[in-house]
């Protein structure tokens, strides 16, 4: 039996960085993957959706090119070609991960891993010994029981494989996956209806951010958003999908289910290692990624904390260091959240609503892109950025951006909040002109009522 210092189970954004970091630290490392290197993120999640959204975005720009004096006639979207491009991008990145692992001397096993005991895994009947094990098995789309099993009823992974878009589509679930794919499809001409059981879509966001996105989705992309009601009596046949929402009958060619994800622990035989999952099926960990079994660590979606690829990576690096080094290190917990709807959203830290729930006194400052030279120049004026700061100490504790490049802009806010900067300090930081990032400085000024490029609340 071959034995390694560290064996990582799952080669997604949590697992493969953990394997590489452990190897960098001098450990002998193996990684086990049952499907494709890169996991959900690369193969059926972040990267493919962003490739499609980039295509939809380019198409939308061409259609609106007349504002720059460009006339484009007969622009047509060949969706099959876009899907082909997506597969190429994914294939290239997948190969990249393979060579990174090989270059770092990480041995790859393909197959499903199961515990024999806490130091031994079985992969395709081959035993692999491990001093330390890092579980990074991720999550998979949950398909609720009330949905019929039919080819016209799909979850996100199947949707991304389709080479033709439907004319009409119902999206069940108004979380970020549902909203991103709804926006992408709507930008390519699909008539989309979102059905969300809770009182609003994207409910984790502050109301002002939600309002901005929802109104753009409804007005500019003509997406129907039905909230506060369940979809019932769902049936599918060769002609289409039907269901009722609050008495109204909805029909469409396709139904996309985006109601959440569940952790993957099937076949791991955790009990052989003395590990149990929580009631929700999660592997519980502390801030050092340690499970209740001393030599086993877990990272990413399977731990159920925040299900984002970059958080999994941060956990993976900490887990690898803690598996190899003697001095334990906590992973960071300040996690930016990015949503590629139209318009884009980026948030980090405490939301205004959370602060209210914690009875924390905060002050906020907003700046709209409509007041920004760069925004007017490029014709991207939807949305705003917002700071949330501690009222007593002026500390930046949260930020939200909704609008053009919001997913990029949130990086500055993340660094500022992690460094515990104050509003005053950020407001004095010189920002290049003319750029979108200037809006952070303007919003910081707004916190103190000192905006230059926004009218005062009271006329002097």
């Amino acid at each position, binding site marked *: 039996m071959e034995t390694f210092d560290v064996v990582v189970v799952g080669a997604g954004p949590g697992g493969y960085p953990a394997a590489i970091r452990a190897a960098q630290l001098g450990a002998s490392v193996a990684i086990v993957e049952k499907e494709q290197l890169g996991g959900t993120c690369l193969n059926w999640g972040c990267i493919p959706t962003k490739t499609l959204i980039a295509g939809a975005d380019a198409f939308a720009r061409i259609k609106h090119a007349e504002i720059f004096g460009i006339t484009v006639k007969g622009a047509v979207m060949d969706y099959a070609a876009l899907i082909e491009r997506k597969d190429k991008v994914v294939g290239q990145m997948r190969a990249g991960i393979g060579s990174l692992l090989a270059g770092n001397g990480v041995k790859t096993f393909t197959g499903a891993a199961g515990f024999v005991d806490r130091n031994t895994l079985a992969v395709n009947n081959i035993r692999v010994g491990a001093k330390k094990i890092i579980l990074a098995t991720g999550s998979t789309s949950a398909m609720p029981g009330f949905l019929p099993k039919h080819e016209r009823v799909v979850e996100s992974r199947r949707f991304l494989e389709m080479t033709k878009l439907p004319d009409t589509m119902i999206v069940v679930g108004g979380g970020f996956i549902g909203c991103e794919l709804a926006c992408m499809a709507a930008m390519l001409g699909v008539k989309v209806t979102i059905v969300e059981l809770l009182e609003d879509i994207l409910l984790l966001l502050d109301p002002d951010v939600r309002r901005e996105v929802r109104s753009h989705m409804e007005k500019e992309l003509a997406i129907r958003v039905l909230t506060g009601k369940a979809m019932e009596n769902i049936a599918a046949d060769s002609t289409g999908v039907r269901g009722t929402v609050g008495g109204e009958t909805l029909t469409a060619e396709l139904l996309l289910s985006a109601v959440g994800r569940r952790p993957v622990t099937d076949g791991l035989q955790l009990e052989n290692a003395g590990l149990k999952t929580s009631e929700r099926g999660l592997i519980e960990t502390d801030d050092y990624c340690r499970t209740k079994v001393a030599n086993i660590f877990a990272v990413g979606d399977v731990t159920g904390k925040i299900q984002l690829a970059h958080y999994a990576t941060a956990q993976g690096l900490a887990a690898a260091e803690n598996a190899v080094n003697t001095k334990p290190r906590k992973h960071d917990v300040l996690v930016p959240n990015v949503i590629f709807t139209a318009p884009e959203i980026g948030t980090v830290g405490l939301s205004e609503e959370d602060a209210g729930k914690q009875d924390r006194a905060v002050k906020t400052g907003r700046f709209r892109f409509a007041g920004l030279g760069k925004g007017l120049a490029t014709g991207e004026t939807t949305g705003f950025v917002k700071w949330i700061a501690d009222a*007593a*100490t002026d500390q930046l504790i949260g930020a939200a951006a909704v609008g053009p490049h919001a997913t990029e802009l949130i990086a500055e806010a993340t660094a500022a909040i992690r*460094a515990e900067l*104050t509003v005053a300090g950020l407001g004095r930081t010189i920002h290049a002109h003319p750029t979108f990032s200037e809006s952070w400085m303007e919003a910081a000024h707004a916190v103190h009522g000192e905006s230059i490029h926004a009218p005062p609340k009271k006329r002097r």
Partner: protein
Amino acid sequence: MATPIIMPKFGQMTEESAIVEWCKKEGDKVAKGDILFTVETDKSVMDVESFEEGMLLKIAVPPGVTVPVQSVVGFLGQPGEAVPAVPVARTPVAPKKTEAAPSTSAPKPVASAPSPIPASAPAVAPAPVATAPGRLKISPRARALAKEAVIDPARIAGTGPSGRIVEKDVEAFLEANRYDQLRISPAAKQLAAAEGLDILMIQGSGDTGRIGVDDVKRALAERPRPMSKMRQIIAQRLTQSVLTAPHFFVTVEVDMTDLVNYRAELKAKGAPYTVTDFISQAVVLTLREFPDVNSSTDGRNIRWNSHLHLGVAVSLEQGLVVPVIRNAEELTLAELNGRAKDLADRARAGKLAPAEMTGSTFTISNMGMLDVENFTAIINPGESAILAVSTTRPKPVVRDDQIVIRSIMKMTLSSDHRLVDGAMAARFVNAVKQKLEDMELWKRLTS
């Protein structure tokens, strides 16, 4: 003319009290009998009702500040009525501990400067607290520099005239403490400045030892704060007891099987007795046989108490209170039960009068509900012994050379060796034990 609201005097011994919470805000309407505020006395937390009606015009003493009894703590009157600018205490008490209280002549005692730590706190580790800039001799420029650096100037040795701290002393101090090497996040520095902490005394836990907001919050949480009045009293009395009364401890095991069964039987018939009631009754009966154990001493004289005032310790969230069952020797088991229940209920509701918590001559401390094997208690000052009662649990014991399972309860008598010798303590606890195991006795007392 606005009517002053006076801090009432609870009990003979109370010299000063602190308001725990104002139940009304300034500007609130107050009816006769409304609770104005709650007060922490030596013994408990009490509600203070309004004798008049009107509007709460002013709160002169904020919560947490200890003031002499009979002081003015606020004003009641009609809307718009003038409030005297200077509240006057009716009976100013010698300024013994007045550093904790706002000076009663100060126009605005509302500023809640963190009260200085009582001098009697040497066990508390030094914390990064910047002391209030009281009589520190320091130049304005030096003070401004220390403030800007967020450090405590009291730690600096002055080289100016008569030891005055001047700007270059602060500069030298900062250099000697490698202030330029200090790493602190802007928000952490802001918070430390607002809270009056000395950032040189804060340990950083960030990358390269940088001080972050969490580090400042940790220092804040560790900052010494005054004990509650109740804890101060507990601390003072128990320390006095341990230092003056030589304690020794005698433990016995009591077989409670029969009594527990009998109690269950009685309970099924609707009798309310608790196990504590039986223990209290057994103690009362035993104390009649051992007057030495119901006595007090000042170290030279012995006083045998003719009455038995039984203290029964009750654990509260804020601390411990010991309501007293007076003249327990005259009470039947049923009366003991009634009195104990009433006192314990009111103790938990904070409604005991101070007189109901003083004057005990013997105390029982029952931790039976807290799942403990055995413990020892500290004697209440002025008493000769205290009985610590632990949890009754099934245990293997030897009876007639056989191992059987019985419900066993341990109890430990702490005695003041000045009054009680070992043999007497042993006889006393065994007498209590025998009574608890004597079913004939209980059948007689409950029939």
